[in-house]
């Protein structure tokens, strides 16, 4: 009967020595883990133990199932095979230990017998092959393909650490097979074919050497065991640490909506200056980073030539915490202000990270400190001062906020006085920016002719504060939100609608924590989608345009709304040709996170907006880029000029298509005046 002869050919003293080395391994391992955990606990508190069920499920899907890792096919499969190969071998080893040194030793029974044992052998052999295939893919990718995202690490020693992991795993796999092969070559059990790889190696030994060489088996076994123990003991000290930190980090991930930014962890000292000012979860982020570089690949700032790489932020912070700083400061020397200000808060890095790091939260927390210190771009300073004083970044009087309504008859209701169903939160750009106000007028006209019961807040509206918050000016965000909430509380309405995804995001996700969630918030694309479906908005003419569409970060990635604008375009008779980067993979226009208020540094080769319009223009037969965000319109119209695409690509707001398709007569209002 097939049975596992654990410790075949191994003298009893070696068996005992193995357990002693094992104990030592556990001690070294535990010391390393305790050292890590004590470091986390030096961070600021942050509550992350609610909804245990969802957290465990996250770990199952993302750590065990590797769902996000698999989104990138080649590295995904590579990692999956290594991971599951190793896990299966680990489980196999644990089963063998339990079989021999628990069941057999204490109860004199073994369960790795008969068909259970042969399937055990077969499965382990197959997973061993997976491991070696994955390692082969990794070696080919890291050392032959050499993708950009694995290059130019900020610091030394990382190459050694990366190679160490591959070498150790490779040695464990190969020596394991050799030991098995030698055992089979000598013992030649009947069930050897159930270990196809081990059997093949055994046959090779028989063909080429002395099959009775028990010393070789014995020596290889010792090497195999030692390598395995060294690898285990080194987990908390090397890149292997992500095996533990990764799943733990996934467990403690934020379960809040992406659009709801965490308030500063300390009210007295908002912002992060020293590493201990980070929360324990942020410190865990830095340790979990595997330097895979996916975040760097999708970062619009990095692509444009800004000094920012979210990958490097994580790596540099981890290095700073764990290695001697030699008197260097964290902010300024390790992480520069330029890097932090380059971020557009597009969330792409956060959404792609396989271990669920939140690079953005660390960037914003460090920005919060820079804001406190007044270490900001002069243009940004003007914008913030204007926002504080006038409630808009344009530095115009709030009494001019509704100036665009002048030609409109009948006058738009003032939601502060008259009850309305929809409160239209117009937003700064739509209210003040000269290239936007004609679109704002169109929207009013469409609302009016569709008989929508709506009103605006006139001079009572303030900037929603979405970007102010992401700049790191939390106090100003609070002030703006308080003012808007007071105005909301004096007005009667059911739903807020806005064309600005940034306002949409913060009104929907961040105003509610200030105690007001008696209303729902809609993006104009969602409202138009409803109005077209219900027949309230009548599409008189199918446009027949071939268009492409840019998903705004704060509508798409932040709030998951991809379909409503697409349904509207389709209802208007537009054929949508997707850009290569669409929906979840949309590419930021570069305006978010307060970037629209800042000057671009000279090293910026090609701005994100220019790359994006080129992407749109490269689609065959497409000459219209549809946007659903006032900032996008401003950014892309400018980029079309600077990228020399005038005449080839036109940027249109969704509302322009609606006006065309509903055959609305816009001059009518003006004639009445």
């Amino acid at each position: 009967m097939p049975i596992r002869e654990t410790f075949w050919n191994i003298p009893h003293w070696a068996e005992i020595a193995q357990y002693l080395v094992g104990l030592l391994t556990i001690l070294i391992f535990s010391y390393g883990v305790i050292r890590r955990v004590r470091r986390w606990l030096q961070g600021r508190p942050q509550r992350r133990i609610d909804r245990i069920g969802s957290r465990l499920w996250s770990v199952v899907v993302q750590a065990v199932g590797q769902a996000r890792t698999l989104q990138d096919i080649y590295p995904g499969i590579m990692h999956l095979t290594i991971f599951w190969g190793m896990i299966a071998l680990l489980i196999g080893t644990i089963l063998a230990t339990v079989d021999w040194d628990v069941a057999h030793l204490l109860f004199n029974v073994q369960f790795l017998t008969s068909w259970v044992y042969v399937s055990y052998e077969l499965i382990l052999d197959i997973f061993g092959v997976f491991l070696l295939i994955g390692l082969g893919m990794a070696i080919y990718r890291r050392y032959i393909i050499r993708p950009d995202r694995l290059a130019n690490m900020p610091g030394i020693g990382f190459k050694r650490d990366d190679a160490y992991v591959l070498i150790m795993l490779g040695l464990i796999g190969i020596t394991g097979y050799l030991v098995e092969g030698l055992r089979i070559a000598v013992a030649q059990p009947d069930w050897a074919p159930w270990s196809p790889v081990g059997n093949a190696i055994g046959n090779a030994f028989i063909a080429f050497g002395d099959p009775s060489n028990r010393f070789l088996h014995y020596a290889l076994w010792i090497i195999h065991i030692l390598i395995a123990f060294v690898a285990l003991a080194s987990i908390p000290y090397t890149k292997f640490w992500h095996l533990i930190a990764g799943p733990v980090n996934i467990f403690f991930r934020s379960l809040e909506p992406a659009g709801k930014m965490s308030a500063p962890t300390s009210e007295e000292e908002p912002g992060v200056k020293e590493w201990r000012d980070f929360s324990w979860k942020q410190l865990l982020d830095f340790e979990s980073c595997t330097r895979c570089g996916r975040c760097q690949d999708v970062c619009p700032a990095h692509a444009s030539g800004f000094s920012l790489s979210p990958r490097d932020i994580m790596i540099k912070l981890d290095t700073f915490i764990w290695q001697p700083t030699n008197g260097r400061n964290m902010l300024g020397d390790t992480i520069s202000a330029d890097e932090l200000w380059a971020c557009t808060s597009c969330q792409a890095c956060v959404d792609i990270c396989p271990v669920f790091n939140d690079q953005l939260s660390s960037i914003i927390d460090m920005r919060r400190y820079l804001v406190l210190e007044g270490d900001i771009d002069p243009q940004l300073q003007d914008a913030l001062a204007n926002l504080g004083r006038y409630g808009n970044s344009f530095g115009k009087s709030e009494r001019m906020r509704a100036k665009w309504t002048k030609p409109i008859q009948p006058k738009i209701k003032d939601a502060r006085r008259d009850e309305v169903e929809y409160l239209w939160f117009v937003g700064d750009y739509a209210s003040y920016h000269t290239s936007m106000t004609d679109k704002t007028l169109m929207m009013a006209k469409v609302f009016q002719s569709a008989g929508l019961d709506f009103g605006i807040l006139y001079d009572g509206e303030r900037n929603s504060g979405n970007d102010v918050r992401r700049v790191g000016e939390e106090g100003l965000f609070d002030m703006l939100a308080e003012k808007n909430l007071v105005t909301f509380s004096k007005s009667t309405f059911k739903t807020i609608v806005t064309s600005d995804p940034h306002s949409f995001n913060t009104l929907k996700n961040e105003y509610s924590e200030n105690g007001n969630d008696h209303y729902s918030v809609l993006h104009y694309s969602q409202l138009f989608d409803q109005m077209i479906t219900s027949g309230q908005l009548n599409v008189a003419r199918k446009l027949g345009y071939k268009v492409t569409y840019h998903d705004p970060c704060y509508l798409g990635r932040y709030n998951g709304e991809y379909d409503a604008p697409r349904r509207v375009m389709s209802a208007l008779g537009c054929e949508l040709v997707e850009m290569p980067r669409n929906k979840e993979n949309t590419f930021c226009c570069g305006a978010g996170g307060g970037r629209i208020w800042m000057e671009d540094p000279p090293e910026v080769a090609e701005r994100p907006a220019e790359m994006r319009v080129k992407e749109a223009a490269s689609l065959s037969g497409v000459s219209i880029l549809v946007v659903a965000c006032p900032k996008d319109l401003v950014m892309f119209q400018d980029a079309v000029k600077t990228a020399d695409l005038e005449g080839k690509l036109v940027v249109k707001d969704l509302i322009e298509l609606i006006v065309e398709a509903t055959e609305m007569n816009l001059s009518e209002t003006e004639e009445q005046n």
Partner: protein
Amino acid sequence: MNIVVLAKLVPDLVEELEIDDSGIALDMTWLRLIINELDDHAIEEAILLKERTGANVTVLAPDIEGVDDILFTAAAKGADRLIKIVGDYESGVNNLGLARVLTPVIKDLQPDLILAGVEAHEDLDGSIGPLLAGYLDLPFIGYVASIELEEGKATATKEYPGGLSAEMEVALPVVLGIQVADEPPRYVAVSKVRQAMKTAEIEELEAGDFDLSGGPTIDRMYQPEVGESATIIDGSLDDIADSLIGIFKELGVQ
């Protein structure tokens, strides 16, 4: 080292200015007030000097609506003492009147350096710096862009039109009119201002009656009157030259 900075609020030009019914003053109903920009520079310069030398900074301002904000903002930047001069500003106070009220206050504070914005857009009777210097019997340098402090003396860099600058050494105490601070006024986070509101204290001093004598009397205040609009001459260089010559002849240019 004691530094006293004068700051005041002036109409914010973001709003359209309107003349009230009397025809000799601005309509205050719609006015919004903002710190005089050059006073903001004076505060910044004082804070920079404090950071360099450890000086003590007192900010002094007339008690007009919004004054608490500018004082607390100054405290958030690092000002040590905040004083507002309470009085009847409703009927209009000129710089002469203000300087007369401020003179004893400033004397009591025994400053080594008195800084004020070199001008404000609503100064109708001259800027406050020279007036104060006169009443205090102290020297005055205006249009100062940079200050170095040493024991008992200051070196002020004064800007002249045409890109000229002069360095002047002056014994303390002195009144300096600030044109621009060494660095642009810093940004103060709202949370810092809110913190200052909790911790800083604004002292109040009574102005008593203002003596406005010696100042100008306003007969009429009015919006700029629109002149004839400019004509843009299009065409080739020769055409433009020809029409110009035509216009000159018409105007009787010999």
